[in-house]
Structure formats: C-alpha cells, structure tokens
C-alpha cells in the first residue's frame, strides 16, 4: 500500500504556509528559462497559474478544448468570491473564513490547506483589482460586499451577477500578456488524451488537435491539471457542455490517486428539467435565496392541480403554503447551505408536493420581498437573473413565483493532491476544481472562484518551484522517446477502436443513460442497494457502449462526436468509481447523503470515528478493482461539531 504523505509543513496552523515559503527551494532565473511547464485548462486555476509561471520566467504551454481561453467554464460563476478582508467590519477574519469553510465542508477537508486558502484570499482581491476587474463598489468608491450562501459575515466580492466572468477575464488578460511576451504558448482546440511518464515522473502529454484530428506530443518538466470538475457524468448539470472529467481520469489511470470521488455538490436553485431533449440545466444564483422564499403547497391536491395546470401558484392561499425551509430550519431559514436546501426540496417532491409538469420543482417566491422592498429594489438586485429566467421559461418572476429544482453543480472530489498540490505522480500537479482539496464534502458559495485563483496565483507558483528545483539538471524533454510514441499509439488505438465499433446508438444516448443512472442511484439520496444496483447498471451501459456506440465521421477531422465519445468512455468508468466511493462511505456528510445514516429528523449523520479520512483511490488496471487508501484528517485547531442550522 502506497504511503499517503500529505506533506503538511510543521508548525502552528497560522505559520505553516509562511514556514513553507521560507524553507522551500527556488529555481534561479537562468534555469527557469530551461524548464517547461504544461498547463491543461484555461479556467481560473489554469489561466492564473500559466500567467504566473510565465511572469516568473518558465516556458509554458497552455491547452484548452475551446476556441479561446476565455470560454472556460469558470466564466459562468455568477455569485462572487470570498475573501477575509473584513472591509465591512463585521468580525470576519482569516480564521473565521477557514472555520466556516471546514465546517461547511462537513469536516472532510484538510486543515492546513483550507487555512492557507483563507490566508491568501485577500491577495486575490488585491490582484484582481490591480488587473482592472470591475468589482461592485459603494458610493464612497470602496469595494462592496454581500453575504452569500448563509455566511454570517459579508465577505463576498462580486461583479454584478458575472463575477466568474470578470475574474476569468482578468486571468485571461494576464495570460494574454504572457502570450504576447512569448513566455506562454497557447494551444486552443486541443484535448489532452494521455499523460506521459518516464521513470515514474511526469514528462509530457499526448493531445488531439480538435480541428485536424492530429495526435500531437508535448514534453515538459511538470504538468498542471486544471481541467475542472466532472459534473457532466450526470449528463444534466449546470456545467458547460464541454466540461468533462476525462483528463482527470486519464491521470488517474496513470497512477494519480482520485480523492473523494463521491463528493459532488447539488445546487438547490436551478431551472427545472422541461423535457427529454434538455441538454443542460441553468443555475439561478444562490443570492436569490436572500430575498426569495421557498415553498410548496401544503395539500397534495393543490400540488396535483398545479401540475395539471388547473391552478396557478398565485391561487394558493398563504395558509396553504408550506415554507418548508423556514419551518425546518428556523435559524437559517431559506439560507441553509446548498446540500441541506437541495435535500429538503427533493424530500418534498418525493413526498408528492412538487409542482411543475414533472412534479420535480418547488417555488421560489419574491412576492413578500417585492411587497417589503418594492419592485425597483428587487429589480436592481436580481434584474438580470429575472430576465434570464423569463427568457428561458417565458414566466415573469415578478408576477408568478420561479420554479426551481436542485441540479449537479460542482465536484468537491477530484485528483488527490498533497499540500503542494502535487498528485501521487511526481511532477503532476492538480489545481482548482480538478483537485479534491479544499471543500471537504460540501463547498460554500463563492468559494470555488477563491480556490481556483488561490491555487493558480498564490500556491502553485511557489510549490511547483520546489519540485522543479530538483529538475534543473534534466534537459528539455524530447518527444522522440519511446514513452511518447507508446502513449500516442495507445491514444490512436483507442480512437480507432471507438471509430470502428459503428454500432447503432449515438454517444449522447450512452451519456444520457449513464446520467440517469447516476442521478437515480448516485444522486441526492444514496442507499447501499441503490449504489450496488447503480454499479451494476453502469457496467452494463459501459459494456453496451463499447459494443454499440456509433461515432460518425472520421478521426482526422473536426469531429465533436468523437470528442464526446472519448469523454463518455472515461465518464463510464468515473461513474462507477463515484458509486464505489459512495458505497464505501457509510455515513452522510455534505453532498454525500446515505439514507441509512440520518438523524431522527432526517438530517445528515456523520460517523467521524470511522470516516474522518479522505478516500484515495488507486487505479489497478482495466477491469481490476481500484484500491482504497486513506488519508486521515486530523483536526487540531477546530472543535468538531455536528452541523446545525436549526438554531
């Protein structure tokens, strides 16, 4: 069994990062020029890391599957980014942000990492403002903050409902500056197909040029995986259509451990599913819950009438409405964390109180807020969201309540990394959503942007040097080495195999089938039997996929069907890994809810004595069961408590 070494520096929590930086090894400028780094993905983590490496003097190659680095899915984050600036003088501090993140993650995140995240959060805001990110400001010209996702302090910085976009464009502009300088080379529309190891160390990648279909080889002294999350295993999610977990899976298969694959976050406020043609789910910002009240009818017959269209939501009298979050969680009400709100919605819908044609929706009502604050205030706060909702559903939220339902949104799990963000393969680093590290079993609102940028701007530039300082003797990696040839051949063989099946169903057919299984059995409420059934069915779909998928076109052209097929093939394995992890984790925590493990009143029940660890899965070969390793989580600075949002 490989020893799990998370390489947490010695010293008191608040000093660990300072100590690390003081004692780490550096690379001198003359040597930096001789070292190559590959960055995969141009989201917040990838773009910020590549830009920073370029500034430092390394040679960087950055890859993305879209036509431009600016399209990465970080762009879609709406709400904001947290930082412990305490500009509002409401008692915030680095410790409090750290504490909230650990608690919000249901005590399944590593203390030292999270503390570092909170520590560098302030630098991120400074950096972004210097780049010209137009954060919201108050009339005095200072930065404005809002409270987000149930936090008791206002620590969220925002740029309208487009914070992710503005932060990404900031990182993209820094990246563009380096591209112009020549320190970073950009490879758009190019997808990583395999990782190349030489003597156990990361030495490069094999890619497919998505325009020409050419298989290309790229060598480097280190590779950073910043390819985002794997929510699209579920087919329907709030992720972009192109978001996928394939690159992470390819690293997993080369020996990188996968951490906590079963931890995915389900966002409570998404626009519900309309029909089977639906391609993705649209998130409505969590900030809506600050003023909106969530309810379903108290009477089943009302719910049925609403579903059939015989009643309108505005017909339901006040006393016949069940504001179930306010009822169950008097202290936090509609602002309970995402996982709690999502499960509560599912519970009501499963009990038959759901609205919408499908019965899978609850109301988010602004009637009271409009009456209290006036329409103009609500319009100023949420105008763009209301407009977006109306464009999609043709309903006007000023007049009739919105309908929402939970959807897969973020994956807390990911490639396992140590304190240096290095995976179990030397020279392979993982950053942003692609790694498992900072959010435990549940991510707090406005923390994803913080983590992506923290990793890219303020962590990797230090830690990667520590690794590369040992590589200064290694000459530029030649892609003529047999290891590259082998990887390219294997990638080509895989493509040929997929192209050669010429079965009877499209790729989407299989991805949708997988998605249904995942949502049904590895979704919001999981059971032992369900997970076992899920695994059985995933295997079945996987088998059918390899026998019966139809990929049209050819391999040497622009072929989105082939791209999807390659990704779905990985998702079919990742899905099983997620289910397996969920099966093993016999407790409920954060986004992972095992129905067998709940309190008398239906809340998540952790088993800290048995499961206070990170599940680290090691690939053991095709068809073999992956092996579980455990990284114990030690809490020295925080008192463990059961999360309580009731009082």
């Amino acid at each position, binding site marked *: 069994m490989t020893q799990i070494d998370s390489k947490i520096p010695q010293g008191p929590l608040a000093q660990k990062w300072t100590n690390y930086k003081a004692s780490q090894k550096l690379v001198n400028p003359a040597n930096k020029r001789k070292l190559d780094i590959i960055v995969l993905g141009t989201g917040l983590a990838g773009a910020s890391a590549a830009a920073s490496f370029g500034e430092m003097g390394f040679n960087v190659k950055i890859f993305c599957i879209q036509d431009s680095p600016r399209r990465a899915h970080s762009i879609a984050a709406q709400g904001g980014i947290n930082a412990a600036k305490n500009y509002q003088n409401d008692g915030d501090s680095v410790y409090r942000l750290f504490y909230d993140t650990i608690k919000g993650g249901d005590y399944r995140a590593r203390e030292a990492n999270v503390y570092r995240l909170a520590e560098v959060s302030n630098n991120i805001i400074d950096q972004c403002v210097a780049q*010209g990110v*137009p954060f919201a*400001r108050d009339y005095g010209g*200072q930065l404005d903050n809002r409270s987000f996702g149930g936090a008791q302090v206002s620590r969220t910085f925002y740029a309208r409902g487009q914070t992710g976009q503005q932060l990404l464009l900031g990182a993209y502009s820094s990246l563009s500056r380096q591209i112009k300088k020549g320190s970073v080379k950009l490879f758009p529309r190019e997808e990583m197909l395999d990782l190349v190891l030489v003597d156990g160390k990361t030495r490069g990648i094999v890619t497919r040029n998505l325009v020409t279909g050419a298989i290309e080889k790229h060598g480097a002294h280190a590779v950073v995986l910043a390819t985002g999350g794997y929510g699209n295993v579920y087919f329907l999610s709030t992720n972009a259509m192109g978001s996928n977990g394939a690159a992470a899976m390819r690293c997993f298969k080369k020996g990188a451990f996968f951490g906590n694959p079963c931890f995915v976050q389900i966002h409570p406020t998404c626009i519900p599913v309309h029909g089977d*043609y639906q391609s993705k789910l649209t998130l409505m910002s969590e900030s809506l819950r600050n003023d909106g009240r969530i309810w379903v009818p108290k009477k089943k017959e009302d719910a049925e009438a609403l579903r059939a269209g015989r009643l309108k939501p505005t017909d339901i009298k006040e006393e016949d409405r069940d504001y179930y979050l306010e009822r169950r969680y008097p202290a936090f009400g509609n602002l309970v964390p995402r996982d709690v709100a999502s499960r509560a919605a599912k519970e009501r819908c499963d009990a038959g109180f759901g609205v919408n044609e499908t019965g899978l929706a609850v109301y988010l009502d602004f009637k009271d807020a409009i009456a209290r604050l006036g329409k103009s205030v609500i319009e100023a706060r949420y105008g763009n969201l209301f407009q977006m909702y109306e464009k999609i559903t043709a309903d006007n939220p000023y007049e009739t309540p919105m309908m929402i339902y939970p959807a897969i949104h973020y994956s807390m799990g990911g490639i396992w990394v140590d304190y240096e963000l290095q995976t179990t393969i030397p020279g392979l680093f993982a950053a942003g959503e692609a790694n498992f590290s900072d959010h435990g079993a549940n991510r707090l609102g406005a923390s994803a942007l913080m983590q992506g940028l923290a990793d890219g701007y303020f962590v990797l530039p230090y830690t990667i040097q520590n690794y590369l300082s040992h590589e200064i003797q290694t000459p530029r990696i030649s892609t003529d080495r047999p290891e590259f040839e082998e990887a390219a051949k294997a990638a080509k063989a895989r493509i040929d195999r997929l192209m050669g099946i010429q079965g009877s169903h499209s790729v989407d057919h299989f991805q949708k089938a997988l998605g249904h299984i995942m949502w049904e059995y590895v979704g919001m409420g999981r059971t032992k039997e369900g997970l076992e059934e899920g695994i059985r069915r995933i295997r079945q779909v996987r088998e059918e996929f390899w026998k019966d998928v139809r990929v049209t076109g050819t391999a040497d052209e622009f072929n989105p069907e082939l791209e999807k097929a390659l990704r779905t093939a990985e998702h079919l394995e990742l899905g099983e890994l997620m289910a397996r992890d969920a099966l093993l984790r016999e407790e409920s925590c954060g986004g992972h809810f095992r129905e067998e493990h709940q309190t008398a009143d239906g809340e998540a029940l952790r088993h800290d004595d048995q499961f206070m660890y990170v599940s680290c899965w090691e690939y053991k070969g095709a068809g073999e069961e992956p092996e579980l390793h455990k990284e114990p989580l030690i809490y020295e600075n925080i008192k463990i408590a059961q999360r309580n949002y009731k009082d």
Partner: protein
Amino acid sequence: MEKKGLNLTLKIWRQENAKAKGQFVTYQVSNISPDCSFLEMLDILNEQLVDKIEKPICFDHDCREGICGMCSLYINGRPHGNDTGITTCQLHMRHFKDGDTIYIEPWRSKAFPIIKDLVVDRSAFDKIIQAGGYTSVNTGGAQDANAILIPKKNADLAMDAAACIGCGACVATCKNASAMLFVSAKVSQLALLPQGQVEARERVTAMVAKMDELGFGNCTNTRACEAECPKQIKISNIARLNREYLGAKFCS
C-alpha cells in the same frame, strides 16, 4: 396543457473544412417543443443525422447559459436570432412559428475563417487582447484593493463594458464586419479605471493597429453591433475608444 410541436425547414450551411466549398443543405425537423432551445433543436436534428449515419452539423457551443460566448449562429439574418440581449443558446423555439423556414449561417468575416460547417475561428479576438487588453501587473505585490477609490459611476460603466463575452455578433452583423464594439469594450473598461491609466495610450494604439491588421472593417456607426450585442454594450464605448485613440495619436 399540451403545447403544439413545431415543424420546421432548416437551411443550414455545410462546409467540410476551411478549404472546401460550402453550400446550404435543407433539413426537416418535426414536433419540436416551443420550450426547447435553439441549440437543443439542433441536437435533436443531429441525433437524427447520426441515426441515418450522416455527419452531424458542427456548431460551437459550450455553457448554454449565455456567458461563454461560444455559440455563434446567424439565424434568418440576425446573429443569435430573432430576440435582443441574448446569445444563440438562449434563443428558444417559441420565437418561431410552425412551418417556418430558418436559414442558419456561420459568422461571415474575413477575420473569422470557417473551420467546419457553422464553426468559425475567432482567434483574431484573442490576438487583439494579446496586443494590449491587459494591465501589466505581475502576480503578487498588488496594493490593498481599497487603496485606490473608484467612483461607483465609473466602476459601473467599466462593468457595463467588461460584460463583453467575445462572441463576435457585433462583427457578424456589422455590414462592414467591424470589430470596433469588441475592441472598444476592453479599451473602455480599462480606460475608466485608474489601474488602466498607466498604459492607456499604448493599449489603444496597439489594439486598434492589431484590429486593422487582422482585416476587420471600419466603423460607420450603423449601430447594428449595439442592437445585436447579447450583453447590450453601448456604442458610447466606441466614442470613448475614438477619444482615447485620437488623444494617444495627438500626444505621442
């Protein structure tokens, strides 16, 4: 309540690759739900094509919530179709009538060569940003974010401009295929903020020169860009760009 499905005739531009000659191909789709999005309608068509062992239609798309800027279809004479303030992915089929014929074309611009079918290469936009659409600030060492106060009005105007998603609808609809709205949005954003002042002159000169070099047309103030911009970016930004540009030219 049952909504009536739509039967539509689609005339779609098909082109094998950058060098091949393209043509319109006619397709029929039936019983499309009005709640379906335009791209989902194309998904349905593509599923049918795969069933018939034909190559599906290639089109760019990603986030499908109107923010990534990837989708780029010229639908019946309008980029992003017949609605305002939206991207193609936010266009829903309820804007069409049963029996409609829909022309679907790629963005047409010398600076955006076609890659395949409806997919175009918009790396020209990246090149313009690389020419100067940034502030030269290295990671680390930035001063406190509140050290420089910025009037709310300016911050808001900068945000209005920064909302650009780089989709290229402005170029697509402009009769001159001009990229002025795109360039002006970035120049404006940084010109309005103190952080962007230091390099303002070099930035505007370099970005405009790059834009001209890449073969975009000139602005004749038809305001078509503004009318089609999914983020409703105003041409007052173009005026600001002109101001900045003339200022830079006169003072250098």
